[in-house]
């Protein structure tokens, strides 16, 4: 039995302790905003926040999360999240959209740690998130736009 917090609520999981967090979120908790893309931490579609830091949920066994606090796209909030989602919407970043939950979770985390990221900072923070539609130019722009909006 693993006890953890998911989007602010106490949860328990009594299945296979090796189960990756991704499948606990999607199968047991039925929150589907977090996506499967590779299963080996190569694409970032499964990115969530664990105790405030980005984590690839597809390779994180639920057993490692005893007492941890997990936040998914469904509940990500705060001024950085709002700024990122507003900026994403304003310039229509998504195409197919499948990777975008992961992109947004990574971008929010970046801005929480670095309110004015350079292009190199963005490259470093976002290189683990693949977008096969290659919306990267707009992702970069939206992060800069979100950072600008947070200045004021």
């Amino acid at each position, binding site marked *: 039995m693993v006890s953890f917090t998911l989007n602010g609520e106490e949860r328990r999981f009594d*299945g*296979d302790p*090796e*189960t*990756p967090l991704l*499948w606990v979120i*999607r*199968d*047991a908790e*039925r929150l*589907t*905003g*977090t*996506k*499967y*893309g*590779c*299963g*080996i931490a*190569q*694409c970032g*579609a499964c990115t969530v926040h664990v105790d405030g830091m980005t984590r690839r949920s597809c390779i994180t066994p639920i057993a490692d999360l005893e007492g941890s606090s997990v936040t*998914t*796209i*469904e509940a990500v909030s705060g001024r950085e999240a709002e700024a990122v*989602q507003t900026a*994403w*919407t304003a310039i*229509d*970043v*998504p*195409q*197919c*959209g*499948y*990777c*975008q*939950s992961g992109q*947004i979770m990574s971008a929010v985390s970046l801005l929480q740690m670095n309110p004015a990221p350079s292009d190199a900072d*963005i*490259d*470093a923070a*976002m*290189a683990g*998130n*693949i*977008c*096969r*539609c*290659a*919306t*990267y*130019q*707009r*992702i*970069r722009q939206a992060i800069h736009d979100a950072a600008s909006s947070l200045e004021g």
Partner: protein
Amino acid sequence: MGRHEILRPSRRAFLQGAGLVIGVTLAGRGMAANLIQGEPADVQNPEAKAFNAFVRIAPDSSVTVLSKHIEFGQGPYTGLTTLVAEELDADWSQMRVEAAPADDEIYKNLAFGLQGTGGSTAIANSYDQMRKAGATARAMLVAAAADEWGVPAEEITVSKGVISHQASGHSSDFGSLADKAATMDAPSEPTLKDPKDFVLIGKDRPRLDTPSKVDGTAVFTLDVLADDMLIAVVAHPDRFGATVASVDETEARKVPGVVDIKTIPQGVAVYAENTFAALKGRAALKIDWNLDAAETRSSEEIYEEYRQMIGGAQGLEAANEGDVDGAMNGDGITTLSVDLVFPFLAHAPMEPLDAVLMRQADGSIDCYNGAQFPGQDKAAIAEVCGVDPANVRVNTQLAGGSFGRRAQFGSPYMREAAEVFKASGMTRPVKHMWTREDDIRGGFYRPIYVHSLRGAIDGAGNIVAWDQSIVGQSIMNKDELDTTSVEGASDMPYRIANRRVTAHQPKLGVPILWWRSVGHTHTGFAVETFIDQLLDKAGKDPVSGRLALLPDDARERAVLEKVAEMADWGSPLPDGRRRGVAVHKSFSTYVAEIAEVSIGEDGGPKVHKVWCAVDCGVAVNPNIIRAQMEGGIGYGLGAILYDEVTLGDGGRVVQSNFHDYRSLRISEMPQVEVAIIESSAAPTGVGEPGTPPIGPAVANAWRRLTGQPVTRLPIMSAAGV
């Protein structure tokens, strides 16, 4: 978008606390399949009135467009809705969109003759049809208003969703008149607007699907949930054409949560109560494969066989003008030749293939999937599961990319999903999913192609002969010439007096498929890199040299001139950088690109900036056109730099996931600047045409940087990086 609220109170309670019901059985709990989350097709709001197959208007004045095209990123949901809204004179805020149901007649792609999305046709084939659907609904609303108010229809105006008659002071929204209007006669030939009166077409318009893709609520097939649903994965053979000889299921059945294991024609299916158990169960299977019918050649062996073919039997003639052999051997002629090798490519959409199948109490079957050819999917399910096609509903969901992967005649993937469902006994809903490994190793690749090119330049520096042979599997599985093998080469725009293009179409046991831009993925590269080398050898500039070879009325001219102007072609460059240019028509859209490249820290190309000019006729939504150029460039760049699916010794696929089938990452994405040529020509597609020019543009810059032409793709692998 129209999200249907289908959670019933009991389902909500289930979601909120009860947790998973564990039961080790394929037999259901005796209830009809209940959808918990998903987008059922054709859910009729009894109050919303159908004006035709594409337009419904509800009492609250919301207008719902039924999109016959799937949305997987290229924007048809927004585009088709824009076309209807324009002629309907609706306000954008009242517009909604939903997937149309599967119907190869009512919802056929007018370019294909069956329902389907692909070939960059969504806007091109729908432009008149959707405008007429909107204009028809508008005429019916006006007729209802005229009748209601007792005024002449000609005096009624419609603007931003308001119907008005100025003289009498009457006005109405759409919803108040919808009931009556839906019963009015539809005009046989509705009047369409003069393009100069367009209010919505031609202007940037926010995508209708953006909000749900930013807050995580967008539902893709993988997100479809049904009561009592099983998760299934299939163990596929490790070589194409192999079949199951024997299976040891012992260890797999011990995995908690594994419900059953069945052998199906495509492999061995593992059913489980959750995804992790299914994956664990599959990993524990021990399978012996029968290789009698398997393809066991390696990629290297295939390349070598293809090279031999060029010198051997006569190919299929795709173009033959003038006297190529005579011109090649003329006096004072300089010749140049090059061979090019293109690997297998996987599409690797972010969402791997998946489908949810469930049987209703009346025996009918619902399928939820990213249906690119819904009618084909429906027929496959009906045949495999033994039900009448009329009793199969295909509910098209948003799909996480495709790039061609989901469009298959005969729907081989859906046949697998249906076999999985059928073998389960069809009592519980089944979600069938592929992992990334299944995707990369699953075949249906862009075929291997080998090109052999020979060109001749006369003493005055004129290119006088072009001889091109193309070897590769026929995507359309033809014995006669498959135009998809030679498109972009046989119809190249340059005026060269003596020109021959031939094709060889060998058979191979590797399943293949179109990949974003189909034949243009390789013909564009071959033509645009070789013409660049010939111009270089003749001492000509890449831009002016191309322009001199293009006919006066060629639409390539404007995009080439525009892109040269944008990039200030010929201006001094920073140290260590070179530029390459390419122009290519595909799907009747013309795109020119210039890439500025240096040698990166890893020794391979670093692409700094790409300028792109596109002529796609009327630009329905410039914002989406720019996005498609940006994305098409990024997708093509990733492929030409990094990607190959390699068959190793014995025919096994070497690559398996994104660590060795690389995708372009944000740090590798160049800055892209797009210009759209103003045009009043009929609109053409933008989903694919941005992709073909980027490869040759980068390769042409790379040749200037290194002195060596790119003769094998991907560039990084060929460069030993």
